[in-house]
């Protein structure tokens, strides 16, 4: 299984973080770990490829410049996010919501379901 690389951004070896967790989400293209089930806030979002999930915290992402976007729920300032390793676009992060009812999304990340894999992880054995 050789992953596709968008561009040869090869400059040194990237440090890849891992959040752990019992159910791990990773990039469908290159299997880079992103987040886990504990960080999942809502599954009822829609992205370009269909269903999308809202997460509290995700690692190993690159962010684009700030964009002004009108969505079903109103006008938002967002940044696109992509996998740090293979540069595949995965979703976006909400930086600012104009409507008060949407402000809970600020700082949270949307990942499109079709672009991520869910796999089995394990709990942290260290109890202290």
């Amino acid at each position, binding site marked *: 299984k050789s992953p596709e690389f968008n561009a040869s951004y090869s400059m*040194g070896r990237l*440090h890849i*973080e891992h959040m752990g967790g019992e159910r791990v989400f990773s990039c469908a293209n290159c299997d880079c770990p992103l987040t886990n089930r504990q960080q999942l806030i809502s599954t009822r979002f829609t992205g370009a490829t269909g269903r999308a999930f809202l997460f509290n915290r995700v690692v190993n992402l690159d962010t684009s410049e700030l964009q002004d976007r009108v969505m079903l729920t109103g006008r938002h300032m967002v940044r696109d996010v992509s996998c740090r390793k293979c540069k595949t676009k995965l979703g976006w992060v909400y930086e600012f919501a104009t409507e008060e009812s949407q402000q809970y999304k600020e700082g949270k990340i949307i990942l499109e379901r079709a672009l991520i894999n869910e796999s089995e992880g*394990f709990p*942290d054995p*260290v109890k202290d």
Partner: protein
Amino acid sequence: MENGCLNGVTNGNSGNHAASTAEAAAAAAASAVSPPLNERSLETVRLIGQFLRELGLSHSVDALVQESGCALENSAAASFRRHVANGDWDAAEECMQSLQSLVTEASSATEIAFRLCEQRYMELLEAGDYMGALNVLRNRLTPLKFNTGRVHELSTYIMCSDAEELHRISGWPGSLAGTREALLDQLQQFFPPAVMLPPRRLLSLLDEAVQYQLAKCRYHNTDLPVAEVSLLADHACSRDSAEFPARCGQVADQHQDEVRCCQFSPDGRHLATGCKDGAVFIWRVDDLTLRLSVARRYHIGEERGGVACLAWSPDSRLLLCCAAEDSSDVLVWCVSPPPLLPPASAAAHHHSLLAESHLNGASVVVNSASVLSGGSSEPQRFSRGGTPEESLTTAAWFPDSVHFVAGGIRGQFYLFSLEAGYRKSWDFIRVVALATRTDRDGNTAALAADSFGRVRQYRFDTMQDETLLQEDGSIIAMCLSRDQQVAALNVVNSGLRLWDLQHRVCLQRLAGPGISQGGYCLHACFGGLTGNFLASGSQDNCAHVWRIGGADSQPDRLSGHSGIVNSVAWNPQHHGMLVTASDDCTIRVWLPTARALSAAATDHGSGGTAATDGSSGQASANLASSPATHSPSDSNPDEDDDDGILE
């Protein structure tokens, strides 16, 4: 030079100075007056006087006393000193009567009397005066009722037949061996320094000042004895004259792609470098010129994402390599074969290695051929034999050069041995970096930095684990100091953090915007004669070098690379040699300036870029004016020495 006398100058000191004030007044009458010496000057005069007296310059001492009007010592103390030095024990004891009030603790007076009598007794025995000795023992030592055990011991020495036997049995070197002076030095501690100065006081102060300067010296990297440091100016090594790797002496561009790792063997004779294209080169270090030349070329395969980790075995013979891209195995090459043994002892050697793997007896795979006798460029592969989902990207050796641990971010953390392969697993730990650490009792534990920002200690023999420290960010890399007391952690967005592993506290934070922002895997390395330097790669194309514990936490920057410096390696035997590995596909050797310039001079064989008069080995002004860190690369194919045999 101030000339003065004591005009009520003993203010602030109580009755201790009472005795000296009286004579000081007398001396004052004899010497000139303006302005009076202050406290500090008087003390300094006393120290100088002691120094001159200890040198034997007694005329100078007298002149000093007279001209400054400052008594060097309380006069009773001075008389006491004189009597002890001359062996006038009765007179010494009389002096003690007047000195009694000056003693720091009242109880010490008895001990002083005891020691005086003890010396007297030993000297009488040595001289053969048994009656006199017995007299001292009965009438002076015993009535003191002090340290009766010692008195009994002393009484046994009467049986010695002559001086030589006395010296041998008691361990007392004799009156000719400076024991009186030693006695005085010991007695001094019972008196406040105002009455009797500690011995060689000026010299100890000067030594302390020198040590302070050495500790502060930014580039100090040599074993200079304190006594040899000049006092005439503050000691500070200049960057160019020190044994500090200040300049680039060699640029090697044999690699075809980004160089990701570099490691010196513990004996300092070889350097291993690992590349993004999977090439692993072994370089030999020339003993005299410290020049690198390629000795071996290995390859781990191109689809593995490049080399992630290189680790030399502690005996400098084996090289372990982990690949970056989720590889389920690690590779071990035998770089230097073991010393040749005759066949019978070779078998015994093999058996002793088997005995060393003391963990519960797993069935041993007799596999000595490829790894232990080596020389072949085929590596031995170690894996658990599990699924391809496994990832081993970091590894560390145990001190026996037989066992090692390997692990990765997917949760594999295994113990291997060279003979038996996979031995044990520690489950569910996502390993980022590994090291091993041996405690005072000889037990070795594996230290693992994990994905939760913790560094934990794992004992594979007792299966006990313990958390040593918790960082507040993601750990990128970890390296240990040579004495294994300090760990340097590269933490995302925080730079380098130094932790004391014994006391589990953070010692120092070394900031470096190029170190951890951007989240690249940059490695650091301790080095220097006393291991007090820390070098790190950085995104700003420089290597940063810090003096640990120095007042100045600004790093020295070694610039010259045209790409990110991924890794640094400091030669553990040649303390002025630092190697940097970079994304610009080269490695650079940094040496003390003089060596670097002579190395560059030999490079300018034909048509070099720097203006030079062709003189080699001279740190000439010509070379200094050329771009300081630029040297022509040596892509001369004759340099490569691929004979495959290494001593």
